[in-house]
Protein backbone atom coordinates (compact mmCIF):
# COMPACT_ATOMS: atom_id res chain seq x y z
CA UNK A 1 0.00 0.00 0.00
CA UNK A 2 1.41 3.38 -0.95
CA UNK A 3 1.94 6.16 1.54
CA UNK A 4 -0.33 9.20 1.68
CA UNK A 5 1.07 12.34 3.27
CA UNK A 6 -1.28 14.83 4.93
CA UNK A 7 -0.25 18.35 5.86
CA UNK A 8 -1.59 19.07 9.36
CA UNK A 9 -2.03 22.78 10.11
CA UNK A 10 -1.64 23.99 13.68
CA UNK A 11 -2.98 27.09 15.44
CA UNK A 12 -0.69 29.75 16.97
CA UNK A 13 -1.33 28.02 20.31
CA UNK A 14 -0.13 24.70 18.86
CA UNK A 15 -3.49 22.94 18.52
CA UNK A 16 -4.19 20.89 15.39
CA UNK A 17 -6.73 22.46 13.03
CA UNK A 18 -10.10 20.67 12.63
CA UNK A 19 -9.41 19.77 8.97
CA UNK A 20 -6.91 17.12 10.20
CA UNK A 21 -9.78 14.69 10.70
CA UNK A 22 -10.97 15.02 7.11
CA UNK A 23 -7.46 14.77 5.66
CA UNK A 24 -6.64 11.59 7.58
CA UNK A 25 -10.03 10.04 6.75
CA UNK A 26 -9.41 10.69 3.05
CA UNK A 27 -5.81 9.48 3.29
CA UNK A 28 -6.86 6.20 4.90
CA UNK A 29 -9.03 5.40 1.86
CA UNK A 30 -6.15 5.56 -0.57
CA UNK A 31 -3.03 4.58 1.35
CA UNK A 32 -1.09 4.49 4.57
CA UNK A 33 -1.97 7.82 6.29
CA UNK A 34 0.99 9.89 7.45
CA UNK A 35 0.57 13.20 9.30
CA UNK A 36 3.24 15.82 8.52
CA UNK A 37 3.74 18.93 10.68
CA UNK A 38 6.17 21.84 10.67
CA UNK A 39 6.79 22.85 14.30
CA UNK A 40 9.26 24.74 16.43
CA UNK A 41 11.45 22.38 18.51
CA UNK A 42 10.12 21.56 21.97
CA UNK A 43 7.31 19.79 23.74
CA UNK A 44 4.39 19.12 21.39
CA UNK A 45 1.95 17.93 24.05
CA UNK A 46 -0.34 15.12 22.98
CA UNK A 47 -0.37 16.01 19.27
CA UNK A 48 0.91 12.56 18.30
CA UNK A 49 -1.75 10.64 20.21
CA UNK A 50 -4.45 13.00 18.90
CA UNK A 51 -3.35 12.37 15.31
CA UNK A 52 -3.19 8.62 15.99
CA UNK A 53 -6.76 8.77 17.27
CA UNK A 54 -7.72 10.42 13.96
CA UNK A 55 -6.10 7.55 12.03
CA UNK A 56 -2.48 8.56 11.37
CA UNK A 57 -0.17 5.53 11.13
CA UNK A 58 2.91 7.74 11.27
CA UNK A 59 3.47 11.28 12.51
CA UNK A 60 6.37 13.12 10.88
CA UNK A 61 7.39 16.06 13.05
CA UNK A 62 9.68 18.39 11.12
CA UNK A 63 11.25 20.81 13.58
CA UNK A 64 12.47 24.24 12.47
CA UNK A 65 13.58 26.99 14.84
CA UNK A 66 11.48 29.48 12.80
CA UNK A 67 8.47 27.28 12.02
CA UNK A 68 6.03 29.82 13.49
CA UNK A 69 7.70 33.02 12.31
CA UNK A 70 8.21 32.26 8.62
CA UNK A 71 5.35 32.03 6.15
CA UNK A 72 4.64 28.84 4.14
CA UNK A 73 8.21 27.77 3.42
CA UNK A 74 8.56 25.63 6.62
CA UNK A 75 5.46 23.63 5.61
CA UNK A 76 6.83 23.14 2.08
CA UNK A 77 10.21 22.06 3.51
CA UNK A 78 8.47 19.67 5.96
CA UNK A 79 6.55 17.93 3.16
CA UNK A 80 9.68 17.76 1.00
CA UNK A 81 11.57 16.16 3.91
CA UNK A 82 8.74 13.67 4.52
CA UNK A 83 8.74 12.74 0.82
CA UNK A 84 12.44 11.99 1.03
CA UNK A 85 11.88 9.90 4.18
CA UNK A 86 8.90 7.77 3.10
CA UNK A 87 9.13 5.65 -0.06
CA UNK A 88 6.35 5.27 -2.60
CA UNK A 89 4.21 8.25 -1.74
CA UNK A 90 1.20 8.31 -4.06
CA UNK A 91 -0.68 11.37 -2.89
CA UNK A 92 -0.12 14.39 -0.70
CA UNK A 93 -3.32 15.79 0.82
CA UNK A 94 -3.63 19.35 2.07
CA UNK A 95 -6.57 21.47 3.21
CA UNK A 96 -7.94 23.80 0.53
CA UNK A 97 -7.26 26.69 2.90
CA UNK A 98 -5.22 29.80 2.14
CA UNK A 99 -2.19 28.21 3.80
CA UNK A 100 -2.78 24.69 2.45
CA UNK A 101 -3.17 25.83 -1.14
CA UNK A 102 -0.12 28.02 -1.07
CA UNK A 103 2.00 25.25 0.41
CA UNK A 104 0.65 22.88 -2.25
CA UNK A 105 1.44 25.33 -5.05
CA UNK A 106 5.03 25.90 -3.96
CA UNK A 107 5.61 22.20 -3.32
CA UNK A 108 4.19 21.23 -6.74
CA UNK A 109 6.73 23.52 -8.42
CA UNK A 110 9.58 22.36 -6.21
CA UNK A 111 9.08 18.62 -6.71
CA UNK A 112 7.53 18.77 -10.19
CA UNK A 113 4.21 17.18 -9.31
CA UNK A 114 0.62 17.61 -10.44
CA UNK A 115 -1.94 19.47 -8.41
CA UNK A 116 -5.73 19.13 -8.01
CA UNK A 117 -7.38 22.01 -6.14
CA UNK A 118 -10.64 22.26 -4.21
CA UNK A 119 -11.47 18.55 -4.46
CA UNK A 120 -14.73 17.61 -2.74
CA UNK A 121 -14.15 13.85 -2.68
CA UNK A 122 -11.46 11.31 -3.32
CA UNK A 123 -12.21 7.73 -4.37
CA UNK A 124 -10.42 4.68 -5.72
CA UNK A 125 -11.70 3.37 -9.06
CA UNK A 126 -9.99 0.32 -10.64
CA UNK A 127 -7.04 0.81 -8.31
CA UNK A 128 -6.41 4.37 -9.41
CA UNK A 129 -7.15 7.41 -7.29
CA UNK A 130 -9.86 9.75 -8.58
CA UNK A 131 -10.29 13.33 -7.35
CA UNK A 132 -13.75 14.87 -7.66
CA UNK A 133 -14.20 18.60 -8.13
CA UNK A 134 -17.20 20.83 -8.51
CA UNK A 135 -16.92 23.69 -11.02
CA UNK A 136 -18.82 27.00 -11.43
CA UNK A 137 -20.62 26.71 -8.12
CA UNK A 138 -21.66 23.12 -8.69
CA UNK A 139 -22.92 23.51 -12.26
CA UNK A 140 -20.41 20.88 -13.38
CA UNK A 141 -18.94 17.82 -11.69
CA UNK A 142 -15.46 16.89 -12.89
CA UNK A 143 -13.51 13.70 -12.16
CA UNK A 144 -9.74 13.59 -12.54
CA UNK A 145 -7.71 10.41 -12.44
CA UNK A 146 -4.36 10.70 -10.69
CA UNK A 147 -1.44 8.94 -12.36
CA UNK A 148 2.15 8.46 -11.35
CA UNK A 149 3.15 10.20 -8.23
CA UNK A 150 3.34 11.98 -6.05
CA UNK A 151 0.31 14.13 -6.82
CA UNK A 152 -0.99 16.86 -4.53
CA UNK A 153 -4.72 17.18 -3.79
CA UNK A 154 -6.23 20.10 -1.84
CA UNK A 155 -9.50 19.03 -0.18
CA UNK A 156 -12.34 21.48 0.45
CA UNK A 157 -13.04 21.84 4.16
CA UNK A 158 -16.14 20.04 5.36
CA UNK A 159 -16.40 17.99 2.16
CA UNK A 160 -15.47 14.56 3.51
CA UNK A 161 -17.39 13.00 6.35
CA UNK A 162 -16.48 10.11 8.60
CA UNK A 163 -13.16 9.34 10.17
CA UNK A 164 -10.34 6.86 9.83
CA UNK A 165 -9.95 4.06 12.41
CA UNK A 166 -7.75 5.08 15.34
CA UNK A 167 -4.17 3.88 15.30
CA UNK A 168 -1.21 3.97 17.64
CA UNK A 169 0.88 6.35 15.56
CA UNK A 170 4.63 5.92 15.21
CA UNK A 171 6.53 9.16 15.58
CA UNK A 172 9.47 10.33 13.54
CA UNK A 173 10.96 13.64 14.67
CA UNK A 174 13.53 15.27 12.42
CA UNK A 175 15.37 18.55 12.52
CA UNK A 176 15.01 20.06 9.10
CA UNK A 177 17.41 22.54 7.67
CA UNK A 178 15.36 25.17 5.98
CA UNK A 179 15.69 25.46 2.21
CA UNK A 180 17.59 28.46 0.95
CA UNK A 181 14.45 30.11 -0.42
CA UNK A 182 13.63 33.43 1.23
CA UNK A 183 10.34 33.40 3.16
CA UNK A 184 8.08 36.23 4.30
CA UNK A 185 8.19 36.91 8.04
CA UNK A 186 5.16 36.62 10.32
CA UNK A 187 5.13 39.49 12.81
CA UNK A 188 1.87 38.61 14.54
CA UNK A 189 -0.90 36.08 14.21
CA UNK A 190 -4.41 36.13 15.63
CA UNK A 191 -7.23 33.65 15.26
CA UNK A 192 -10.58 35.30 14.66
CA UNK A 193 -12.87 34.81 17.64
CA UNK A 194 -15.15 31.90 16.91
CA UNK A 195 -18.67 31.62 18.20
CA UNK A 196 -18.40 28.17 19.70
CA UNK A 197 -22.16 27.88 20.09
CA UNK A 198 -22.66 27.84 16.32
CA UNK A 199 -21.36 25.29 13.81
CA UNK A 200 -18.64 26.17 11.32
CA UNK A 201 -20.00 27.65 8.08
CA UNK A 202 -17.99 25.31 5.85
CA UNK A 203 -19.25 22.09 7.38
CA UNK A 204 -22.66 23.06 8.82
CA UNK A 205 -25.70 20.97 7.84
CA UNK A 206 -27.90 24.08 8.04
CA UNK A 207 -26.91 27.60 7.00
CA UNK A 208 -28.96 30.78 7.48
CA UNK A 209 -27.66 33.70 5.40
CA UNK A 210 -28.63 37.34 5.34
CA UNK A 211 -28.35 39.95 2.62
CA UNK A 212 -28.84 43.62 1.99
CA UNK A 213 -32.53 43.20 2.87
CA UNK A 214 -31.66 43.13 6.57
CA UNK A 215 -31.01 46.85 6.24
CA UNK A 216 -28.50 47.38 9.04
CA UNK A 217 -25.86 45.72 11.14
CA UNK A 218 -28.15 45.83 14.17
CA UNK A 219 -31.01 44.19 12.31
CA UNK A 220 -28.72 41.44 11.03
CA UNK A 221 -29.33 39.95 14.47
CA UNK A 222 -32.52 38.48 13.00
CA UNK A 223 -30.36 36.11 10.92
CA UNK A 224 -28.49 35.01 14.04
CA UNK A 225 -31.74 34.38 15.92
CA UNK A 226 -33.12 32.10 13.20
CA UNK A 227 -29.72 30.39 12.91
CA UNK A 228 -29.75 29.65 16.62
CA UNK A 229 -33.33 28.34 16.48
CA UNK A 230 -32.24 25.94 13.72
CA UNK A 231 -28.80 25.09 15.15
CA UNK A 232 -27.36 26.60 11.99
CA UNK A 233 -24.24 28.46 10.90
CA UNK A 234 -24.54 32.12 9.88
CA UNK A 235 -23.63 33.24 6.37
CA UNK A 236 -24.06 36.40 4.32
CA UNK A 237 -24.19 37.70 0.77
CA UNK A 238 -21.41 39.91 -0.56
CA UNK A 239 -23.78 42.89 -0.37
CA UNK A 240 -24.18 42.35 3.38
CA UNK A 241 -20.41 41.99 3.83
CA UNK A 242 -19.70 45.10 1.75
CA UNK A 243 -22.28 47.00 3.83
CA UNK A 244 -20.31 46.00 6.94
CA UNK A 245 -23.03 43.90 8.60
CA UNK A 246 -20.66 40.92 9.09
CA UNK A 247 -16.99 40.07 8.45
CA UNK A 248 -15.82 38.71 5.10
CA UNK A 249 -15.22 35.27 6.64
CA UNK A 250 -19.01 34.71 6.56
CA UNK A 251 -19.42 35.51 2.86
CA UNK A 252 -21.09 32.78 0.82
CA UNK A 253 -20.66 32.86 -2.94
CA UNK A 254 -18.37 33.08 -5.91
CA UNK A 255 -15.63 34.90 -4.02
CA UNK A 256 -16.46 33.57 -0.57
CA UNK A 257 -17.16 30.18 0.92
CA UNK A 258 -19.00 27.53 -1.10
CA UNK A 259 -21.43 25.60 1.07
CA UNK A 260 -23.42 22.41 0.45
CA UNK A 261 -25.71 22.10 3.48
CA UNK A 262 -28.89 20.05 3.86
CA UNK A 263 -30.83 23.29 4.35
CA UNK A 264 -29.97 26.80 3.18
CA UNK A 265 -32.16 29.71 4.27
CA UNK A 266 -31.65 33.00 2.38
CA UNK A 267 -33.05 36.06 4.15
CA UNK A 268 -33.26 39.32 2.20
CA UNK A 269 -30.91 37.99 -0.48
CA UNK A 270 -31.95 38.78 -4.04
CA UNK A 271 -29.92 35.92 -5.49
CA UNK A 272 -27.26 37.45 -7.72
CA UNK A 273 -25.68 34.72 -9.82
CA UNK A 274 -22.44 35.14 -7.85
CA UNK A 275 -24.26 34.27 -4.62
CA UNK A 276 -26.01 31.29 -6.18
CA UNK A 277 -22.59 29.93 -7.17
CA UNK A 278 -21.84 29.50 -3.46
CA UNK A 279 -25.00 27.73 -2.33
CA UNK A 280 -26.99 26.21 -5.20
CA UNK A 281 -25.83 22.68 -4.37
CA UNK A 282 -27.67 22.84 -1.02
CA UNK A 283 -30.22 20.04 -0.70
CA UNK A 284 -33.16 22.29 0.24
CA UNK A 285 -33.27 26.06 -0.30
CA UNK A 286 -35.68 28.39 1.51
CA UNK A 287 -35.89 32.08 0.57
CA UNK A 288 -37.69 35.02 2.12
CA UNK A 289 -37.68 38.30 0.23
CA UNK A 290 -40.04 41.21 -0.18
CA UNK A 291 -39.38 41.38 -3.93
CA UNK A 292 -41.54 38.73 -5.65
CA UNK A 293 -39.29 38.89 -8.74
CA UNK A 294 -36.02 38.22 -6.87
CA UNK A 295 -34.02 35.57 -8.78
CA UNK A 296 -33.47 33.60 -5.55
CA UNK A 297 -37.08 32.34 -5.92
CA UNK A 298 -36.15 30.60 -9.20
CA UNK A 299 -34.07 28.05 -7.29
CA UNK A 300 -35.88 28.02 -3.93
CA UNK A 301 -37.79 24.92 -2.86
CA UNK A 302 -39.87 27.07 -0.54
CA UNK A 303 -40.16 30.79 -1.16
CA UNK A 304 -41.99 33.42 0.86
CA UNK A 305 -42.73 36.86 -0.53
CA UNK A 306 -43.03 39.01 2.55
CA UNK A 307 -41.46 41.14 5.25
CA UNK A 308 -38.55 39.39 6.96
CA UNK A 309 -39.21 41.18 10.22
CA UNK A 310 -42.74 39.75 10.38
CA UNK A 311 -42.15 36.27 8.91
CA UNK A 312 -38.92 35.28 10.67
CA UNK A 313 -39.96 35.99 14.30
CA UNK A 314 -43.21 34.13 13.66
CA UNK A 315 -41.29 31.19 12.16
CA UNK A 316 -38.90 31.09 15.16
CA UNK A 317 -41.86 30.89 17.56
CA UNK A 318 -43.56 28.20 15.46
CA UNK A 319 -40.35 26.15 15.19
CA UNK A 320 -39.94 26.24 18.98
CA UNK A 321 -43.52 25.07 19.46
CA UNK A 322 -43.32 22.30 16.85
CA UNK A 323 -40.01 21.07 18.23
CA UNK A 324 -41.60 20.63 21.65
Amino acid sequence: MSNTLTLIEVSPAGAIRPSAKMLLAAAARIGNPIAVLALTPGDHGDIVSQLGALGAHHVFLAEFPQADSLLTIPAVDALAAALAHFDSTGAILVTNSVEGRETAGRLAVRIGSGLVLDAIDITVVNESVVAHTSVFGGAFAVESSIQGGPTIVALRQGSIEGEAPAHAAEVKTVSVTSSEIRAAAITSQTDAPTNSSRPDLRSATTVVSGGRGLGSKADFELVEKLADALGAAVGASRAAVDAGYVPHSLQVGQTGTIVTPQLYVALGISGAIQHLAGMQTAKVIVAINKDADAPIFDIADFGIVGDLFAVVPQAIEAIKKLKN
Partner: protein
Amino acid sequence: MKIVVLVKQVPDTWGERSLDSATGILDRTSGDNVIDEISERSLEVALRVKDDSEAEVVVLTMGPASAVEALRHCLAMGADSALHVLDDALVGADVTWTSAVLAKAIAQSGFDIVIGGNESTDGRGGVIPAMIAEHLAVPSLTSLSTVKIMADAVSGSRETDYGSLNVNASLPAVISITEQSPEARFPSFKGLMKAKKKPLTVLSLANLEMDPLTSFEISGKSTITAVTRRPARTAGTKIIDDGNAGVQLAEFLVAGRLV
Protein backbone atom coordinates in the same frame (compact mmCIF):
# COMPACT_ATOMS: atom_id res chain seq x y z
CA MET B 1 10.32 50.27 -8.91
CA LYS B 2 9.04 47.80 -11.49
CA ILE B 3 5.66 46.25 -10.75
CA VAL B 4 4.25 43.33 -12.75
CA VAL B 5 0.47 42.86 -12.41
CA LEU B 6 -1.09 39.51 -13.27
CA VAL B 7 -4.27 39.90 -15.30
CA LYS B 8 -6.82 37.28 -16.29
CA GLN B 9 -9.72 37.38 -18.70
CA VAL B 10 -12.58 35.22 -17.45
CA PRO B 11 -16.15 34.37 -18.45
CA ASP B 12 -18.47 37.01 -17.04
CA THR B 13 -19.93 35.70 -13.77
CA TRP B 14 -23.19 37.46 -14.71
CA GLY B 15 -23.59 35.16 -17.72
CA GLU B 16 -23.64 31.50 -18.69
CA ARG B 17 -20.41 29.64 -17.93
CA SER B 18 -19.63 26.27 -19.39
CA LEU B 19 -17.04 23.52 -19.71
CA ASP B 20 -16.39 21.57 -22.90
CA SER B 21 -18.02 18.23 -22.10
CA ALA B 22 -15.38 16.20 -23.95
CA THR B 23 -12.20 17.80 -22.60
CA GLY B 24 -13.27 19.56 -19.44
CA ILE B 25 -11.60 22.72 -20.76
CA LEU B 26 -13.26 26.09 -20.24
CA ASP B 27 -15.66 26.95 -23.05
CA ARG B 28 -14.79 30.55 -23.89
CA THR B 29 -17.50 30.89 -26.52
CA SER B 30 -20.56 30.36 -24.34
CA GLY B 31 -20.65 33.81 -22.76
CA ASP B 32 -18.97 37.21 -22.59
CA ASN B 33 -15.32 37.33 -21.57
CA VAL B 34 -14.31 40.17 -19.28
CA ILE B 35 -11.33 41.18 -17.18
CA ASP B 36 -11.62 39.55 -13.76
CA GLU B 37 -12.59 42.10 -11.10
CA ILE B 38 -9.74 40.95 -8.87
CA SER B 39 -7.26 41.71 -11.71
CA GLU B 40 -8.56 45.29 -11.84
CA ARG B 41 -8.11 45.60 -8.07
CA SER B 42 -4.56 44.20 -8.37
CA LEU B 43 -3.78 46.88 -10.93
CA GLU B 44 -5.32 49.52 -8.64
CA VAL B 45 -2.84 48.53 -5.91
CA ALA B 46 0.01 49.02 -8.40
CA LEU B 47 -1.35 52.32 -9.73
CA ARG B 48 -1.59 53.74 -6.19
CA VAL B 49 2.14 53.10 -5.81
CA LYS B 50 2.70 54.84 -9.14
CA ASP B 51 0.47 57.77 -8.05
CA ASP B 52 2.81 58.47 -5.12
CA SER B 53 6.25 57.52 -6.40
CA GLU B 54 8.33 56.55 -9.39
CA ALA B 55 7.09 53.20 -10.62
CA GLU B 56 6.75 51.31 -13.87
CA VAL B 57 3.64 49.13 -14.12
CA VAL B 58 3.61 46.19 -16.54
CA VAL B 59 0.46 44.11 -16.97
CA LEU B 60 0.89 40.47 -17.96
CA THR B 61 -1.64 37.93 -19.17
CA MET B 62 -1.60 34.51 -20.74
CA GLY B 63 -4.66 33.71 -22.80
CA PRO B 64 -6.28 33.55 -26.22
CA ALA B 65 -6.24 36.42 -28.72
CA SER B 66 -9.37 37.93 -27.13
CA ALA B 67 -7.43 38.51 -23.86
CA VAL B 68 -5.87 41.57 -25.50
CA GLU B 69 -9.10 43.40 -24.55
CA ALA B 70 -8.28 42.95 -20.87
CA LEU B 71 -4.77 44.32 -21.43
CA ARG B 72 -6.08 47.37 -23.36
CA HIS B 73 -8.43 48.08 -20.44
CA CYS B 74 -5.43 47.99 -18.05
CA LEU B 75 -3.40 50.33 -20.27
CA ALA B 76 -6.35 52.74 -20.28
CA MET B 77 -6.52 52.54 -16.48
CA GLY B 78 -2.89 53.65 -16.35
CA ALA B 79 -0.50 50.71 -16.79
CA ASP B 80 2.65 51.62 -18.75
CA SER B 81 2.99 48.53 -20.94
CA ALA B 82 1.48 45.12 -21.51
CA LEU B 83 2.74 41.59 -22.16
CA HIS B 84 0.48 38.97 -23.75
CA VAL B 85 1.64 35.36 -23.79
CA LEU B 86 -0.23 33.83 -26.72
CA ASP B 87 0.53 30.36 -28.09
CA ASP B 88 -1.75 27.62 -29.40
CA ALA B 89 0.25 25.06 -27.43
CA LEU B 90 -1.11 26.66 -24.25
CA VAL B 91 -4.79 25.92 -24.92
CA GLY B 92 -6.11 24.12 -21.84
CA ALA B 93 -2.91 24.78 -19.85
CA ASP B 94 -3.22 23.81 -16.17
CA VAL B 95 -1.71 25.61 -13.17
CA THR B 96 1.63 23.81 -13.71
CA TRP B 97 2.04 25.17 -17.23
CA THR B 98 0.51 28.53 -16.50
CA SER B 99 2.74 29.28 -13.53
CA ALA B 100 5.88 28.16 -15.39
CA VAL B 101 5.06 30.35 -18.40
CA LEU B 102 4.14 33.42 -16.35
CA ALA B 103 7.26 33.04 -14.19
CA LYS B 104 9.44 32.91 -17.32
CA ALA B 105 7.80 36.02 -18.76
CA ILE B 106 8.22 37.86 -15.41
CA ALA B 107 11.88 36.83 -15.15
CA GLN B 108 12.49 38.05 -18.72
CA SER B 109 10.78 41.34 -18.06
CA GLY B 110 12.40 41.93 -14.66
CA PHE B 111 10.46 42.88 -11.50
CA ASP B 112 10.61 44.21 -7.98
CA ILE B 113 7.15 43.07 -7.04
CA VAL B 114 4.48 40.91 -8.69
CA ILE B 115 0.82 41.58 -7.78
CA GLY B 116 -2.04 39.21 -8.55
CA GLY B 117 -5.52 38.40 -7.29
CA ASN B 118 -6.00 35.79 -4.56
CA GLU B 119 -8.12 33.69 -6.91
CA SER B 120 -9.84 34.05 -10.27
CA THR B 121 -13.60 33.72 -10.56
CA ASP B 122 -13.35 30.87 -13.09
CA GLY B 123 -10.62 28.49 -11.97
CA ARG B 124 -10.67 29.57 -8.31
CA GLY B 125 -7.45 27.60 -7.75
CA GLY B 126 -5.72 30.44 -5.94
CA VAL B 127 -2.23 28.99 -6.34
CA ILE B 128 -0.69 30.78 -9.31
CA PRO B 129 1.01 33.60 -7.30
CA ALA B 130 2.58 31.10 -4.88
CA MET B 131 3.73 28.86 -7.73
CA ILE B 132 5.26 31.81 -9.56
CA ALA B 133 7.06 32.80 -6.35
CA GLU B 134 8.55 29.31 -6.04
CA HIS B 135 9.72 29.43 -9.69
CA LEU B 136 11.33 32.81 -9.04
CA ALA B 137 12.66 31.74 -5.59
CA VAL B 138 11.17 34.77 -3.82
CA PRO B 139 8.75 35.13 -0.86
CA SER B 140 5.01 34.88 -1.48
CA LEU B 141 2.58 36.93 0.61
CA THR B 142 -0.88 35.91 -0.50
CA SER B 143 -4.49 36.84 0.33
CA LEU B 144 -3.58 40.28 1.63
CA SER B 145 -6.56 42.39 2.66
CA THR B 146 -4.37 45.42 3.24
CA VAL B 147 -0.97 46.02 1.69
CA LYS B 148 1.79 48.58 2.01
CA ILE B 149 4.42 48.65 -0.71
CA MET B 150 7.65 50.45 0.14
CA ALA B 151 10.79 51.02 -1.93
CA ASP B 152 12.47 47.84 -0.75
CA ALA B 153 9.83 45.91 1.19
CA VAL B 154 6.17 44.93 1.36
CA SER B 155 3.94 44.31 4.35
CA GLY B 156 0.27 43.58 4.90
CA SER B 157 -2.46 41.75 6.67
CA ARG B 158 -3.10 38.26 5.40
CA GLU B 159 -6.59 36.83 5.75
CA THR B 160 -6.62 33.10 6.36
CA ASP B 161 -9.39 30.60 7.05
CA TYR B 162 -8.86 31.02 10.78
CA GLY B 163 -7.94 34.65 11.35
CA SER B 164 -5.28 37.04 10.19
CA LEU B 165 -1.51 37.37 10.13
CA ASN B 166 0.69 40.42 9.80
CA VAL B 167 3.45 39.59 7.35
CA ASN B 168 6.33 41.34 5.64
CA ALA B 169 9.19 40.65 3.27
CA SER B 170 11.92 42.52 1.52
CA LEU B 171 11.66 42.82 -2.27
CA PRO B 172 11.64 41.19 -4.73
CA ALA B 173 8.46 39.34 -3.76
CA VAL B 174 5.12 38.10 -5.08
CA ILE B 175 1.87 39.15 -3.42
CA SER B 176 -1.81 38.47 -3.97
CA ILE B 177 -4.65 40.67 -2.81
CA THR B 178 -8.28 39.96 -1.87
CA GLU B 179 -11.49 41.74 -2.84
CA GLN B 180 -11.19 43.65 0.45
CA SER B 181 -8.63 45.88 -1.28
CA PRO B 182 -9.85 49.14 -2.85
CA GLU B 183 -12.12 49.21 -5.86
CA ALA B 184 -10.43 49.91 -9.17
CA ARG B 185 -10.53 53.31 -10.87
CA PHE B 186 -12.31 53.74 -14.20
CA PRO B 187 -10.26 54.50 -17.31
CA SER B 188 -10.51 58.20 -18.21
CA PHE B 189 -11.04 59.44 -21.76
CA LYS B 190 -7.46 60.72 -21.70
CA GLY B 191 -6.35 57.29 -20.51
CA LEU B 192 -8.15 55.61 -23.37
CA MET B 193 -6.44 57.87 -25.90
CA LYS B 194 -3.00 57.41 -24.34
CA ALA B 195 -3.45 53.62 -24.16
CA LYS B 196 -3.33 53.35 -27.95
CA LYS B 197 0.28 54.49 -27.99
CA LYS B 198 1.50 52.29 -25.15
CA PRO B 199 3.59 49.18 -25.92
CA LEU B 200 1.72 45.88 -26.05
CA THR B 201 4.02 42.94 -26.74
CA VAL B 202 2.86 39.48 -27.79
CA LEU B 203 5.10 36.64 -26.63
CA SER B 204 5.09 33.05 -27.96
CA LEU B 205 6.59 30.08 -26.11
CA ALA B 206 9.54 30.36 -28.52
CA ASN B 207 10.05 33.99 -27.41
CA LEU B 208 10.17 32.69 -23.83
CA GLU B 209 12.61 29.94 -24.86
CA MET B 210 10.17 27.27 -23.74
CA ASP B 211 9.37 24.03 -25.53
CA PRO B 212 5.95 22.52 -24.71
CA LEU B 213 7.39 19.02 -25.08
CA THR B 214 10.05 19.42 -22.42
CA SER B 215 9.20 22.49 -20.33
CA PHE B 216 6.21 21.02 -18.53
CA GLU B 217 7.36 17.51 -17.57
CA ILE B 218 6.03 16.46 -14.18
CA SER B 219 6.10 13.15 -12.34
CA GLY B 220 2.55 12.79 -11.05
CA LYS B 221 -0.37 14.30 -12.90
CA SER B 222 -4.14 14.33 -13.05
CA THR B 223 -6.19 13.75 -16.18
CA ILE B 224 -9.84 14.72 -16.50
CA THR B 225 -11.85 11.54 -17.02
CA ALA B 226 -15.45 12.74 -16.70
CA VAL B 227 -17.36 16.01 -16.93
CA THR B 228 -21.03 16.05 -15.96
CA ARG B 229 -23.39 18.99 -16.08
CA ARG B 230 -25.65 18.99 -13.05
CA PRO B 231 -29.34 19.44 -13.79
CA ALA B 232 -30.49 23.01 -13.15
CA ARG B 233 -32.56 23.65 -10.04
CA THR B 234 -36.20 24.52 -10.47
CA ALA B 235 -38.47 26.70 -8.39
CA GLY B 236 -40.65 24.97 -5.80
CA THR B 237 -43.51 26.40 -3.77
CA LYS B 238 -43.76 30.19 -3.58
CA ILE B 239 -46.26 31.80 -1.24
CA ILE B 240 -47.13 35.40 -0.48
CA ASP B 241 -47.26 36.17 3.21
CA ASP B 242 -50.85 36.57 4.37
CA GLY B 243 -49.84 36.85 8.00
CA ASN B 244 -49.21 33.14 8.49
CA ALA B 245 -46.12 32.47 6.33
CA GLY B 246 -43.81 32.00 9.35
CA VAL B 247 -45.96 29.14 10.61
CA GLN B 248 -46.12 27.61 7.12
CA LEU B 249 -42.32 27.79 6.92
CA ALA B 250 -41.98 26.02 10.26
CA GLU B 251 -44.38 23.30 9.07
CA PHE B 252 -42.43 22.90 5.80
CA LEU B 253 -39.17 22.46 7.75
CA VAL B 254 -40.68 20.00 10.21
CA ALA B 255 -42.32 17.96 7.42
CA GLY B 256 -38.95 17.73 5.65
CA ARG B 257 -37.21 16.77 8.92
CA LEU B 258 -35.02 19.84 8.54
CA VAL B 259 -35.30 20.97 12.16
